[in-house]
């Protein structure tokens, strides 16, 4: 892995920025180069929000991600918007509670996790975003779960330490209750 580009997309308020932040922190802990980025909609409210993270062993050029290697998709509109952008043969992590589990493209690999449902069951739909991180890390091993937990604790303890345990729980639930689905890449079958 030389450079991995991750996109996190969802509705404003679903916490996409937090996901980017935690992944970036974990990278720094692992001494990887990293550039995170956030895009809001109209100045702040509404619309689709997304964040991106690029991790690399080398100097990072463009901070923009146009074609992510992997995308965490938190709701339906984001799926519609970003599915076409994912790199051929890339990966989509779906919050199936809100996206359903239909992909239009056949060339993608998929991680399914009913993140909002899991979060709801944990007592707070707001941690759905953290659930997806757990799932991502579990199946890609992009980073070690320990660094992610560390990053998560660092972030929340500066803001509101009381939230740490719930979020750790969500992280683990995501790791456990997600599923990796490898479709044979459509493109390569034809070639």
């Amino acid at each position: 892995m030389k450079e991995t580009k991750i996109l996190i997309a969802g509705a404003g308020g679903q916490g996409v920025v937090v996901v980017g932040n935690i992944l970036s922190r974990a990278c720094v802990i692992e001494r990887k180069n990293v550039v995170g980025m956030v895009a809001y909609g109209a100045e702040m409210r509404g619309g689709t929000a997304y964040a991106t993270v690029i991790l690399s062993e080398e100097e990072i050029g463009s901070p923009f991600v146009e074609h992510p290697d992997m995308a965490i998709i938190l709701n339906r509109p984001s799926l519609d918007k970003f599915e076409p952008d994912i790199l051929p043969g890339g990966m989509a992590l779906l919050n199936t509670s809100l996206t359903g589990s239909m992909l239009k493209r056949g060339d993608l690999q998929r991680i399914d996790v009913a993140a909002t449902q899991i979060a709801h069951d944990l007592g707070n739909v707001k941690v759905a975003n953290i659930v997806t991180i757990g799932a991502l890390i579990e199946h890609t091993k992009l980073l070690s779960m320990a660094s992610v937990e560390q990053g998560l604790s660092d972030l929340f303890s500066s803001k509101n330490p009381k939230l740490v345990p719930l979020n750790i729980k969500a992280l683990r639930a995501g790791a456990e209750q997600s599923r990796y689905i490898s479709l044979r890449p459509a493109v390569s079958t034809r070639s």
Partner: protein
Amino acid sequence: MAVFKRTPILKDQLTHYCPGCGHGIAHRLVAEVIDELGIRERTIGTAPVGCAVLLYNYFNCDVIECAHGRSPAVATGIKRVQPDKIVFTYQGDGDLAAIGTAETIHAANRGENITVIFVNNAIYGMTGGQMAPTTMLGQVTTTTQHGRGGQGEGPPIKVCELLSTLGGVCYLERTAVSTPKDVMNAKRAIKKAFQNQIDGKGFSLVEVLSMCPTDWKLSPAQSVDFVNEKMKPVFPLGVYKDQ
């Protein structure tokens, strides 16, 4: 038989507002008033810079989006060129009472025959919860993290009280959208403010105390309580001028 349903001027369009946001209620009231007065086809609205910047996505009438705070000046330009049209501005507290202070006061004092809907949610909604001129003493915002007042921010500005000293002003009322009764009353006031314009009476402004759950970091229910318990004592409802 009474039917309560979305009035036609409101497009069947999901708003971008957060759950429990008072803008949604204020929009409905303005829309119903325009429809009830039958003036949709001669109404021109202004969109502020603030959470309501996309107002034209929801109102089926002519709309112009103005630079932050300048709606009263823009409305002046429109109304003077087309005095037979009904011109309203819709502005937040940052837009109207901070960057737009001069435009507000002078349009009011000139007695421009326009209607101003002033949504006071005591915060900068769109930019993520900074102090507004109407933020209350002690209220925590992203730029007053120990509560307003500690660092020389002064107390909240009370727009109706301020404007009531201006000779040119026709009608000022402060309302809220935090109880059903307030909502009904706000609608009456908004209707009157439009009727004044139709009657050529001059500058009318209706202030609407409104919820911003997101930037207050409260639930919608708590936000309603915040308006009723915290804001109303500081911003007393009522008519401040009516000539």
